[in-house]
């Protein structure tokens, strides 16, 4: 078998960080090759070098056996390399078709090219079983659909080396499965796939070989068939990672959150939530499972006081402790008022909602907590921040760094640390471990369970069934804006949950 890509002693430095340290390994043609490693291990950087996004400081890259100088993404595309970035590289305001043809228009006049390319894409879609509306605008598409656009884009460009950076982090299990079907088709056609992921089961399920990275270097390169999950986790983190966390028996207390008949209708008249009823008691974790886009995000937004879109109609009754929320008057400061009631919120899209990247870490620790005092005593705030960073093992431990200088996983930890430190009585958590390495996942789970044991009511929204199984006391399943079923952890049953998520209740 010939090699498709080979890295020889590739190094890359960003200021003080050595992101890639003499990386060498080869990827065989016609295989699916996994790359794993902790947050900040250098995976994305390596792939960015391969795609011509960055220039390596040293080392060579061989494509199909030849040393190539990939100066920019254009050169990479010419070599048949395609990349699906973790944060999709799509122009939100443009249509699917325009996004796909961008850079490969084929002529100066778009109109005549559009029809030609549309035909070509239709046949590609048929070949790969993709279903995409070509004239839809990107910002109307779900994440899964957007990813399909990215893949179609690579197909249209006839990429024979396809890089996917954490493609499943934001996908539902069903969407992930659909993706893997396509990737296998790819492989069958002799194309090469490079897959970065934090989910070890995926690695085991689909890849042929795995490279494990740590601190910028390669620590192991193995055939998938010859390894297992524990082994990989050990290689990645450098210590063994417990998969099952110990849990105290449930001791639920008074009702903290009571939701009755909650409905949400958006400006277009679509019912995003219909008659949602449930409650959360102190000391229990209630998880909401569901395919994303079925109302969980909106529910969380409403409960956190963040839903403030023009034209929304919210009705029903939400009670937190003894306070009834009023949705009649749109109040942009509702989120702050809820915090005073003891509500903490880890938002789903933390890097968008939960932090301000330009602010230093210590000021991010204040976000949401800012209205507690008039004068912000910097010394005190920094001391508090330092303590939290130490407690949550954020690296580097420096409250004066700009948040954007931290790695993604560490940014997540800061949001979590802040929300836990607020000593909530009700904690709203959305997708807490999306895009985080397994060591960090374990840490986050431990913290959440500790909160529960301390008597905090926790509402958890997650797309990961594994996570729900590890944490929840009760599971609510949502589909189409309704709660389609409820079961306690004792009755946990993947098939049943799957059916309920599909909206098929008895």
């Amino acid at each position, binding site marked *: 078998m010939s090699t498709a890509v080979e890295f020889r002693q590739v190094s890359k430095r960003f*200021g*003080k960080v050595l992101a890639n340290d003499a990386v060498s390994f080869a990827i065989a043609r016609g295989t699916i090759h996994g790359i794993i490693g902790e947050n900040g291990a250098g995976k994305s950087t390596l792939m960015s070098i391969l795609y011509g996004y960055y220039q390596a400081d040293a080392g060579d890259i061989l494509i199909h056996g030849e040393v190539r100088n990939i100066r920019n993404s254009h050169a990479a595309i010419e070599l048949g390399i395609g990349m699906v970035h973790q944060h999709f590289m799509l122009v939100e305001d443009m249509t699917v078709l325009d996004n796909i043809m961008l850079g490969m228009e084929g002529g100066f006049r778009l109109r005549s090219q559009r029809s030609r390319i549309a035909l070509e894409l239709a046949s590609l879609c048929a070949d790969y079983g993709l279903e995409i509306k070509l004239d839809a605008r990107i910002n109307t598409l779900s994440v899964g659909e957007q990813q399909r656009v990215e893949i179609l884009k690579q197909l249209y460009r006839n990429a024979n080396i396809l890089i996917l950076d954490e493609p499943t982090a934001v996908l539902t299990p069903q969407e992930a499965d659909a993706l893997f079907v396509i990737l296998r088709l790819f492989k069958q056609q002799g194309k090469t796939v490079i897959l970065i992921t934090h989910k070890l089961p995926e690695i085991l399920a689909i890849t042929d070989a795995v490279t494990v990275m740590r601190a910028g270097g390669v620590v192991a390169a193995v055939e998938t068939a010859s390894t297992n999950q524990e082994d990989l986790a050990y290689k990645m983190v450098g210590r063994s990672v417990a998969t099952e966390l110990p849990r105290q028996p449930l001791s639920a207390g008074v009702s903290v959150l009571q939701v009755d008949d909650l409905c949400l209708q958006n400006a277009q008249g679509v019912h995003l939530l219909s008659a949602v009823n449930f409650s959360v008691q102190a000391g229990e974790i209630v998880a909401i499972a569901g395919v994303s886009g079925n109302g969980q995000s909106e529910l969380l937004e409403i409960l*956190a*006081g*963040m839903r*403030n879109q023009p034209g929304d109609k919210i009705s029903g009754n939400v009670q937190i402790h003894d306070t009834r929320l009023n949705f009649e008057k749109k109040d*942009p*400061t*509702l*989120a*702050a*008022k*809820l*915090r005073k009631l003891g509500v903490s*919120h880890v*938002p789903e*899209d933390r890097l*968008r*909602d*939960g*932090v*301000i*990247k*330009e*602010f230093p870490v210590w*000021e991010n620790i*204040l*976000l*949401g907590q*800012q*209205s*507690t*005092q*008039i*004068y*912000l005593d*910097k010394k005190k705030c920094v001391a508090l921040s330092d303590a939290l960073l130490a407690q949550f093992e954020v690296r580097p431990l420096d409250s004066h760094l700009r948040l954007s200088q931290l790695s993604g996983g560490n940014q997540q930890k800061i949001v979590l640390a802040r929300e836990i430190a607020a000593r909530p009585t009700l904690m709203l958590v959305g997708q807490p471990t999306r895009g985080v390495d397994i060591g960090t996942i374990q840490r986050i789970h431990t913290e959440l369970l500790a909160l529960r044991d301390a008597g905090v009511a926790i509402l958890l929204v997650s797309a990961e069934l594994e996570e729900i199984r590890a944490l929840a006391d009760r599971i609510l399943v949502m589909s189409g804006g309704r709660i389609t079923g409820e079961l306690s952890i004792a009755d946990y049953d993947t098939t049943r949950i799957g059916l309920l998520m599909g909206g098929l209740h008895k």
Partner: protein
Amino acid sequence: MNSDLPRWATNVALPMLNLLSAMLVAAGVIYLLGESPIEALGIMLRSALGNVEGFGYTLFYATTFIFTGLSVSIAMQAGLFNIGSDGQMYLGGLGLTLVMLQFDASLPAWILIPLAMSAAAVFGAAWAFIPGYLQAKRGSHVVVTTIMFNFIAASLMNFIIITYMIPVGEQNPASRVFAENAWLPRLNSLLPALGDTPLNLTFICAVICLFAYGLIVWRTRWGYALRAAGKSAHAAQYAGISIATVIIVTMLVSGAFAGAAAMNSLAGSMHYLSLNFTSGAGFIGIAVALMGRQHPVGIFMSALLFGILIQGGFDLSLEKSNIPAETFVFIQGLIILFCGAMENMYAPALSRLLNRKWGNNV
């Protein structure tokens, strides 16, 4: 971008290099105009910094720019680009003048002056309120509305001054002169060593306002909300910060700063309201805010720089008739270009230099 440079390099060395580059280009122009650049620089510095009185004038000009610079800066902190400081200052002048004309005969100075100051701030704030409100509630772009409001202010003030303010039989489109107890105390009355300059109480106010600005923006919850809303609308919503309120309040404060700028020239030096008395100080405020990176020290330094340019440039054109006063307008532009827009031009070279000197450990 230059995060791998030590602080002294970014805060002192780079600005100095940039200033030097601007000066070099300016020197070229002065040379082409047939004068000696060295001599010209000497005259300028002597006039603006080298004698007490000249320095007083430099500070006097800087005072106005500190206020307009603060006005633009605070809006920028909230992500708003207030181009309307000039119009707000103009209206501030109206507020101040109305109080002065009404009460300068009846009220003692210690009531009159604070009253007039407040009126200036209130009128400036009121003029900024409408663009702020429209941005907050209707989403009308504040850049456009403030530009429009500058034009509208000019028309309105023209009308008011011509129709109501000119004393009968006067030619000059200006109000009558305020009675002497309405004049702001000049600092040379406290400190005679300052010599004969119009530097007045407003300068003290400006310095206080700089401190207050720094304190409010970085050390209060209100400033935090302001900056958060300016950086990320999503995060502001998450934190329960009402962006509409932040926009409106910020524009009010911004307008109040601009309005207060009118004090320096009207109550401190001219003592009457005249047509277009702002002479574009609001626009210089934009440059001051941008170059000073909205930081109190930066605002002070760049306001001072503009003060030096105006004072020194003026004296130079007085002595060298070959150099028209407009040359300094050009040099102002050059300095903004080099120190503001190309501020990082020398960063890579400097960092390479430093790395070579102290090994590769940076």
